[in-house]
């Protein structure tokens, strides 16, 4: 199990160090880790971003062997969240997935307690809460309580008030009854003056599309996000109109799995607050017939190829983007009017050899070029099928060696978009009922379709 836990700052400094099993792991483990991590920092001029929220040091394998310590070989299992590296040091055989899941959970809890992002300053401002949390989450190197509700019953999150007063609001001396109940996810004695529950069915489309718009591979992952403010201990039953659309699913621990197996209904006592009720994938036939709602055709021109290596050359990129009417999305009955895509955005990475850009012109939206990352971000915002947008931009770059023209090939574009009241699968809720409590809560259900990792290849 976990022998030690380290949390490193974005510059590799040890912020938190905790040893769970009586053995003090030398900090040299962190140095070894940081040496490896620095490789990717030097290589990319920064960490590489997976998406807007995810990033990682891709020179460090998530499970890394560190030989030659006092205790022989140690295994460092790590993840990077909000700029902080979470390192779990294990001396012997262990389930790496368990550790990784746990590290992510720790980071989630920090966000829950200190707000987003749970970064260096959040940790520094809350040392003593961090230690108390770790104490409750791990004992002797084993993950224990990781349910936010159970933790909050024992350790009070820092509030604006307590910060202002710098005082010691005494945590209730009574053990809150929900702490170790048989429903560790639910806090007892919740009470709201207005009872309400919102259910979002979010479907994310991951796709790789070629320059002509043909889909090379696609995958749709759905999740049901709930925002729950219900008093007491309500028992909920969620039913779908057509559950056969769902192919594979995984549930929050609160869901009674056997009920779903038998009747394809989701029966559960919800946690308090925001949570993900379930995630699912849809049947392959639906994915295969997927037609993306947006298009983007890139065209790169590198100018005269005969110039000698090392010289500056000028190239030009042209993009056409827009919303198609041919998409295979299913719209909710409440949806009226034309298809409107929101938060439409195209990220255009330029070739590594690029030195500068000029003559940037767009006829729709705004575009900003990020000099350091060599990425042009084209923000189209809200758009419907009636408009077509185009972008042109010239760029000058260092001509590569003859025979390495290939190296110029620009990285793939990535697209972000969101369409409210739409879904890929057509999954709709047919009913949501509350039992065990007498009140009638306000219930809201809606569908959202959006981009996951959506890429367009240029070649």
């Amino acid at each position, binding site marked *: 199990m976990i022998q030690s836990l380290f949390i490193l700052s974005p510059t590799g400094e040890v912020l938190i160090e905790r040893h769970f099993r009586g053995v003090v792991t030398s900090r040299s483990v962190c140095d070894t880790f940081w040496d490896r991590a620095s490789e990717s920092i030097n290589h990319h001029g920064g960490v590489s971003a997976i998406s807007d929220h995810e990033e990682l040091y891709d020179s460090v394998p*998530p499970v890394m062997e560190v030989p030659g310590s006092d205790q022989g070989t140690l295994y460092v299992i790590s993840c990077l969240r909000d700029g902080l590296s979470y390192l779990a040091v*294990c001396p012997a055989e262990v389930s790496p997935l368990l550790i*990784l899941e746990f590290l992510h959970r720790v980071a989630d809890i920090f966000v829950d307690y200190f707000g987003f992002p749970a970064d260096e300053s959040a940790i520094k401002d809350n040392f003593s809460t961090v230690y108390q949390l770790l104490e409750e989450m791990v004992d*002797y190197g*084993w993950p224990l309580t990781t349910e936010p509700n159970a933790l909050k019953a024992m350790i009070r999150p820092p509030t604006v008030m307590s910060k202002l007063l710098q005082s*010691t609001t005494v945590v209730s001396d009574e053990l809150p009854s929900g702490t170790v109940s048989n429903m560790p996810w639910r806090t007892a004695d919740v009470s709201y003056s207005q009872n309400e529950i919102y259910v979002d069915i979010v479907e994310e489309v991951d796709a*790789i599309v070629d320059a002509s718009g043909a889909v090379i591979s696609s995958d749709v992952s759905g999740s049901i996000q709930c925002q729950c403010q219900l008093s007491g201990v309500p028992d909920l039953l969620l039913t779908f109109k057509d559950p056969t659309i769902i192919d594979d699913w995984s*549930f929050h621990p609160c869901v009674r799995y056997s009920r779903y197996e038998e009747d394809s209904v989701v029966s559960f006592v919800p946690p308090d607050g925001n949570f993900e009720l379930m995630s699912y994938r849809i049947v392959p036939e639906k994915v295969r017939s997927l037609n993306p709602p947006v298009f983007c055709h890139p065209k790169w021109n590198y100018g005269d190829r005969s110039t000698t290596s090392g010289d500056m050359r000028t190239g030009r990129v042209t993009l056409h983007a827009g919303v198609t009417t041919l998409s295979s999305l299913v719209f909710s009955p409440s949806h009226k009017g034309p298809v409107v895509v929101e938060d439409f955005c195209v990220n255009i990475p330029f070739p590594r050899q690029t030195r500068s850009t000029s003559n940037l012109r767009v006829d729709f939206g705004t575009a900003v070029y990020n000099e350091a990352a060599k990425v042009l971000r084209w923000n189209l915002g809200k758009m419907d099928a009636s408009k077509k947008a185009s972008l042109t931009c010239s760029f000058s770059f260092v001509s590569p060696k003859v025979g390495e023209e290939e190296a110029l090939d620009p990285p793939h574009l990535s697209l972000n978009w969101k369409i409210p009241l739409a879904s890929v699968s057509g999954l709709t809720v047919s009913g949501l009922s509350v039992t065990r409590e007498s009140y009638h809560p306000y219930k809201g259900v809606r569908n959202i379709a959006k981009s996951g990792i959506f890429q367009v290849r240029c070649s």
Partner: protein
Amino acid sequence: MHELRMELHSTDRAVKVDAVKKVIASMTVGKDVSMLFTDVLNCVQTGNIELKKLVYLYLINYSKTQPELTLLAVNTFVKDASDSNPLIRALAVRTMGCIRVDRITEYLCDPLSRALRDEDPYVRKTAAVCVAKLYDIAPDLVEERGFIEILHDLISDSNPSVVANGVAALSEIAESSGKDVMRITASVLQKLLAALNECTEWGQVFILDSLAKYTPADGREAEGIIERVTPRLQHANSAVVMSAVKVILSYMELMGSQNSDAIRALTRKLAPPLVTLLNSEPEIQYVALRNINLIVQKRPNILENEIKVFFCKYNDPIYVKMEKLEIIIKLVSEKNIDQVLLELKEYATEVDVDFVRKAVSAIGRCAVKLERAAERCIAVLLELIQTKVNYVVQEAVIVIKDVFRRYPNRYESIIATLCDNLDTLDEPLAKASMIWIIGEYAERIDNADELLETFLETFEEEDPAVQLQLLTATVKCFLKNPEDTQDMVQRVLDMATEESDNPDLRDRGFIYWRLLSTDPDAAKIVVLGDKPVIEDDTFKLEPALLNILIGQIATLSSIYHKPPDSFVVRRRAGLPTEEDDEEDDDDDDEYDEEVRDSSAGGVDLLDMGGMSVNDHKQFTPTAPMTRVAGPEKAGGIEVFSGFVQEGGKIFMELEFSNVSAGQDISTFAIQLNKNAFGLSPANQQVIFQPPVSPGSSGTTRVEMVMNPAMQVPTPNGQNVNPQIQVAIKNMHNNGVFYFAVNLNFECLFSADGEMEKTAFIEAWKSIDDRHELYATVSDLPADSTSIEDVQQKFAAYNIFFIARRPVPNAEGQEVVYFSMKSVHGMTFFAELTFKRGVNAAKVCLKTEATSYGGLAKSALESLLRSD
């Protein structure tokens, strides 16, 4: 600091809490605040939980350095353990378990036993973990007090968190003690299966992992358990999913072939959860992919239709891409090859050089694997060669050589294209591959001799691999076209035999020379003979290893694809006796006797019987043997290795288990890479006498000498790397394999390390305390607890006894001093502390040679542990 102290003594609770927080904050950034120990301790008498928690946190941190002072807190602990507030009861029990001070342990037992039966589940779950902590410090005490039985009861507790911790504690104890405390009986099995639905996600992982170690009685039981486990595949936690997959895959083996319908149904159920894992964070994806790699080797049909999900996304981290590529090659089939080729071609234009090369090589591997698609694959490779990107061309040439070996005489038409790109090649492997192709198809290349001629111009500067290929290719060329190439072959043979100092090259040169001069026809048969057709290597783990690894899914071994025992060091008696092969008896005493017999035999052989003065055990230095290479790496040989000193000479002991189905093995050559100790073999030949026949194993020793030229200096302030890299060549089939073994440092202690007492004291004092190294060795075998025995054992390893004395004011404690000197002349001084009746020892080591200190300390620790 003074201010802090004042604040700690403040009567205002708010000020006090704030002060303790400040102390904790300094502690976390590594500042030493141990001087405030008593002041902080005073704050523990409080009703405020938060304050108490912080003080306890501080206590745990400094209990190690201030054991005496920690004892002052015992009363508080005992009192808190029966507090009316369950939070405080649990906190006290937990903290006491974390303080690893012997005397605290004694006080811990009663509160712990109460806590295990506490009415509050929060206390029970904390107590369950505490049992495992206690077992680590004092296993006897745990067994004596019957705590293990109580843990068994906790598995059927009404609260899920308690169940989870009970299972975790039991598995931990089972693992660390090697005892079967987690034995799954029919009733335990039912308890576990019931708990699986109830307990927390982490507990589910522990339960599933214990289930994976259990072997069901028959197919029906296996099926029954699988049915209960299957719902876990839908869990949101990837660790739960993967452990469930492990249980199902292991049990599927037992279901037998009569049940093929059920197996098919299960196979269908396994695919979706595995695919879902690829939607998680990249770190989790990586671990999942390494495991999927094993799963597709074992049961390819599970994911046969899912190849698309393994296609790489542009911003996947490189380690995820590499793993995906491996799996794509494993899943490629005639059905999906066209799509896969398009993908691989796309990858070949990406930026990351390693990834591009792997993609190019993958195209070739597809060709080798799928005969009907070979032509399409080659077309793609040719297209890539046209891009003239340097590393793409080189990688393509390397892999095309494999294609030629797989399908001889089928695709020569592309040789012309390859020849156009000769000047691009600058890497040895690519050059060697190209030269091999030229030699092999010399008769179809018009200017083969000219091409070889250009390579020959730089013969002397080439890498040995290229030289060898050049030599062979020229000879092939000569045999096919003797008229034009006589000069050339003569020149090559001259260069190889006379000007080169590479023994391999010289040997091969002489053989060709002799063959050509005595019997050119025989030479033709030998050199131009049909080569065995190579096979697709994509399913490369051996079935036996694969089966072991399938049982280890979701563990570290599954990531490194190494069997679990390579994660522990094996220790074996130096002289194996016949009894070794027999099954272990349950009776431990008997086993001890056998060991004694064998070591006594060893003593007689060495004619040292006269030294035996009493009935104490005789110690002969033995090499701790570690498994360093498996049959998959070492050509059908399992290799164990370790180092030992005997008669003033240092030996590397090698044990080869011949697990190949082939022939006897006997003669090898050995070579060591430069290492931190300057070790190199005195003689490069290694002979097993008698030869090791398949299915048996043999042991031999290679004498080592110190060669300063072979020493890699270690930079100041860094720890020495104990690793020795070894290359072994099998002289029968010229197969070469490599392995690395860590040097057990005690074999380098020389016989002249003895010291005068006064000299020792002076040397001890002269070394700065900051260079002290500490370790505590617990769980010592019975013969390491008596100082006399330790002294004897150490003497056998040239670790010399200086003095011993009782520790004042600590009854039953004694310190013993030893000195040792390495053959390089570095001296080490050690202080060992023993306590009567406790099978643990403290080690403190001082040396000027700081970079080697860690090694000497580890050597002492492992000697103490060995029996």
